[in-house]
């Protein structure tokens, strides 16, 4: 038998991404690249009013536009029983096309189908809608009064959607009352939008067998198939969902949008393929936004800075429908991670959500179900507490960190943190940034009246939803799956229920399979997004791919290894018990010269399998026993121009602990991307509505995405504390930088402004907001 020249390490290798050659050459295959004979285009008429009764919809002029084939309205859909769509959270529904009234500006009102995209847009422009304006509720605090009832369609005649709470209410109140030091601050995490480069879209048609072929920008193709079957009544086997290359998702491509339903209805009604692709404005104004949490954060502590209690009361703006795609049992997501990296003996968190005349959503933007909001609240809160105590922000954090020996750590709000070494991770960051020298520099600058700030965020995330006991979407448990087939010549294919949107699954999954089976990752193909071929899974969001689908791949590969062991025993002419897997090959125990490679076993599985079942493939459905808890220590150093309010992020160090790293280069890429988004939220991005309910950030001139010009230079490092329950020790990393970084930026700016007495500013920290804060502070003194 053969011997191998060198070990076949695949995990931990910075392998170049297999998908990149096609992306950088413009050869990706996106939904909008698809074209079918006879294909029509759909354009949606959208409401100009945030809240109005629909008096009449006149489609006669639209039907005269050359090329327009059909126009459908909410009434048509309602007659067909398709007027409403259940939201993924499951306890609300959303109008597909407005019925009776509109509830937010840019809401879908009518669908126009035409021979060309231009004709469809012209047709939509020609639809005459008569509106009678109704009073507008543009914020959750006005909504709370119920002076204007937004959703008379619901049984509960109130704008209040839900109250959710976790923790010990009385115990927290008692501990807070007896704490010698207390801080309280309202912290608003503004409404923002993930704005993926590729907007949402689909192509729908019914094939000659009457089967729905549905190409769509979806992060969760299987959930779409089930949801479409439930909504339309089409049997699930007659629905084929395909999600091709995606140009970013960030949670924006999890919900099912009205445009998808309209495209399917049009395809059915007209009998031709229908394509719908959003414009940038449609994407920013009507699809899943992020955050909009007003959080009242209260922390109690002893005189010397030991935290004693945490209370957070949140008012959430959910928009016109409760379309925040949360797991069924978690209407406020996993906001309970709000105790962060600290040993709070007692805590209480509550969230009250309200309808407003704004676009629906809330769960998006690279964030595991409200974890970004929670992390921001606690990391800002800890800085405010440090300020109150007159204590160094690092010292306060270290004093309250969960120690390495306390894991698995049961948090006050019910999570069991799997692993971490927070002191070490922070020390790496302090060393890298040169904290001591920076403090000296800052003192000297302050003496000269210059504004320099150092900001920390030592966050803990909770990702990888999730254990079936707690987590489901529309009742479907949040497991994930993998199917691996090894071909006779030792190459193979892996399919999962996850769906890459740029994360690099085609590379990392190949590395995982290669590592487990001792094969060449270049010859392991990865396929995702096709419900006809991929095993059922819940998709990619909430940093769940590596913790859940990744674990399924490992387990499927190990199943293959067990099968291969039998064949290896046959080839090595020993009993199965005498074969061990060592150094990426099978070996007769104690006889290093007697080995057989997986490649040889694969060939034998099809040519010389003896009494064993032919073939070499396996499937695994993985139900995670716990969530994973990636964490990190981020440090930002900023200089603020006292005269202009201009903030310069001079340095940014991000030390992440995401457990075992599959591909360091991919991880670094994820960190860079997420930090850039965190920077955008901290300084630039906000979806603003005026008091009349107008969305003021409807395009890329009003809603900015940072370019290389303004993006700071990122310095990254890692510590590795494996997850004890993940088969490979990995934790997931996609969202860490987005979750962790906003607080570091804001803490740095507030630290810079603290000599002026500024204690808090809400994001985004635009230069005019910072300038005003400086001016106001200087006027006060």
């Amino acid at each position, binding site marked *: 038998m053969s011997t191998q020249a060198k070990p076949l390490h695949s995990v931990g290798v910075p392998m170049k991404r297999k998908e990149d050659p096609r992306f950088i050459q413009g050869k990706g295959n996106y939904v909008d690249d698809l074209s079918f004979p006879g294909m029509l285009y759909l354009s949606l008429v*959208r409401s*100009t*009013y*945030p809240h109005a009764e629909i008096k009449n919809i006149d489609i006669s002029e639209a039907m005269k536009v050359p090329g327009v084939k059909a126009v459908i309205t909410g009434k048509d859909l309602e007659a067909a029983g398709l007027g409403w769509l259940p939201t993924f959270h499951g306890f609300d529904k959303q109008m597909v096309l407005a019925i009776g009234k509109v509830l937010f*500006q*840019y809401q879908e009102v009518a669908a126009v189908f035409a021979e060309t995209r231009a004709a469809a847009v012209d047709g939509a*422009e020609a639809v005459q809608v008569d*509106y009678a*304006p109704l009073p507008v509720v543009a914020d959750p605090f006005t909504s709370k009064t119920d002076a204007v009832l937004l959703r008379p369609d619901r049984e509960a005649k109130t704008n209040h959607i839900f109250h959710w709470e976790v923790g010990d209410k009385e115990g927290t109140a008692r501990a807070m009352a007896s704490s010698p030091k207390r801080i309280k601050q309202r912290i608003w995490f503004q409404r923002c939008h993930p704005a993926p480069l590729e907007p949402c879209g689909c192509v729908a048609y019914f094939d000659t067998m009457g089967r729905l072929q549905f190409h769509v920008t979806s992060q969760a193709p299987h959930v779409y198939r089930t949801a479409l079957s439930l909504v339309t009544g089409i049997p699930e086997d007659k629905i084929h969902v395909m999600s091709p290359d995606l140009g970013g998702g960030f949670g924006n491509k999890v919900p099912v949008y009205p445009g998808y339903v309209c495209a399917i209805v049009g395809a059915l009604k007209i009998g031709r393929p229908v394509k719908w692709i959003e414009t940038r*404005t449609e994407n920013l104004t009507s699809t899943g936004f992020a955050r909009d949490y007003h959080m009242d954060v209260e922390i109690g502590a002893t005189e010397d800075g030991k935290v004693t209690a945490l209370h957070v009361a949140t008012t959430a703006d959910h928009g016109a429908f409760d379309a925040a795609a949360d797991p069924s049992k978690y209407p406020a997501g996993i906001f309970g991670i709000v105790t962060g990296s600290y040993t709070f003996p007692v805590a209480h968190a509550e969230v009250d959500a309200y309808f407003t005349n704004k676009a629906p959503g809330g769960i998006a933007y690279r964030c595991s179900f409200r974890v970004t909001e929670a992390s921001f609240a606690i990391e800002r809160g800890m800085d405010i507490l440090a300020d109150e105590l007159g204590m160094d922000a690092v010292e306060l954090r270290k004093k309250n960190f969960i120690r390495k020996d306390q894991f698995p750590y049961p948090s006050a709000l019910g999570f069991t943190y799997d692993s971490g070494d927070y002191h070490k991770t922070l020390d790496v960051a302090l060393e890298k940034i040169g904290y001591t020298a920076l403090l000296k520099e800052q003192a000297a600058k302050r003496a000269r009246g210059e504004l320099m700030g150092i900001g920390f965020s030592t966050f803990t995330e909770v990702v990888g939803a999730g254990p079936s006991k707690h987590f489901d979407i529309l009742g479907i448990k949040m497991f994930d799956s993998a199917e691996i087939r090894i071909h006779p010549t030792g190459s193979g294919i892996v399919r999962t229920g996850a769906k890459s949107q740029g994360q690099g699954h085609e590379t990392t999954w190949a590395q995982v399979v290669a590592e487990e089976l001792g094969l060449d990752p270049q010859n392991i193909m990865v396929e995702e997004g096709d419900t006809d071929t991929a095993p059922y899974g819940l998709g990619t969001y909430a940093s769940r791919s590596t913790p859940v689908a990744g674990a399924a791949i490992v387990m499927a590969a190990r199943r293959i290894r067990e099968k291969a062991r039998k064949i290896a025993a046959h080839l090595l002419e020993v009993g199965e018990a005498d074969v061990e897997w060592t150094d990426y090959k099978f070996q007769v125990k104690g006889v290093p010269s007697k080995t057989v490679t997986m490649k040889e076993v694969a060939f034998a599985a099809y040519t010389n399998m003896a009494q064993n079942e032919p073939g070499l493939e396996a499937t695994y459905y993985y139900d995670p026993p716990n969530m994973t808890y990636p964490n990190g220590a981020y440090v930002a150093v900023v200089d603020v121009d006292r005269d202009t309010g201009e903030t310069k992020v001079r340095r940014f160090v991000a030390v992440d602990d995401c457990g075992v790293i599959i591909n360091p280069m991919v991880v670094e890429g994820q960190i860079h991307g997420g930090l850039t988004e965190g920077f955008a939220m901290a300084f630039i991005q906000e979806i603003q509505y*005026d*008091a*009349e309910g*107008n*969305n*003021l*950030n*409807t*395009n890329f*001139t*009003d809603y900015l995405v940072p370019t290389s010009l303004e993006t700071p230079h990122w310095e990254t490092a890692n510590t590795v504390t494996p997850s004890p329950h993940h088969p490979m020790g990995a934790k997931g990393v996609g969202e860490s930088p987005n979750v962790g970084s906003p607080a570091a930026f804001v803490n740095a700016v507030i630290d810079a402004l603290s000599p002026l007495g500024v204690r808090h500013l809400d994001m985004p920290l635009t230069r005019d907001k910072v300038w005003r804060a400086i001016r106001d502070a200087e006027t006060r003194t």
Partner: protein
Amino acid sequence: MNLQYTGEEKIPVGLDTVWTFVTDPEKVGRCFPEVVDVTVQDATHFEAVVKVGVGPVRGKFKVKVELLPAPSKRRLDMKMSGGGFGSTVDLTAGADLADAGDGTTLLTWSGQAEARGPIAAVGGRVLDAQAQKLIAQAFGNVRQQLTA
């Protein structure tokens, strides 16, 4: 977004002439800046198509106008609502007419507009100044037509 405007225009012709002009839908309609077409329905109603360009938002607006002349012949109110390219503008305007002596008339006007859609989104930057300019232009046109 809510916009409010006020201003005055001195017109070198008598009050009655001005009144006759401003209560004539065809004539008033033609004074709209960038007007493309005016369709008169009756003595107090007309529709106008105007070209609108605010920052990157450009296109044609179809505007429905209702004139509400006061019996005193000293005040004219106007209701306009229009839209296009996914935007809507609702506008109410009023003008008081007063004899300014020497056969001239003083038009004191005020208006309130509510803009919605993309046109409102660009509002913070340019809409306000643009609208002010357009309204001033409209009354300027009235003066010009009456003077010519």
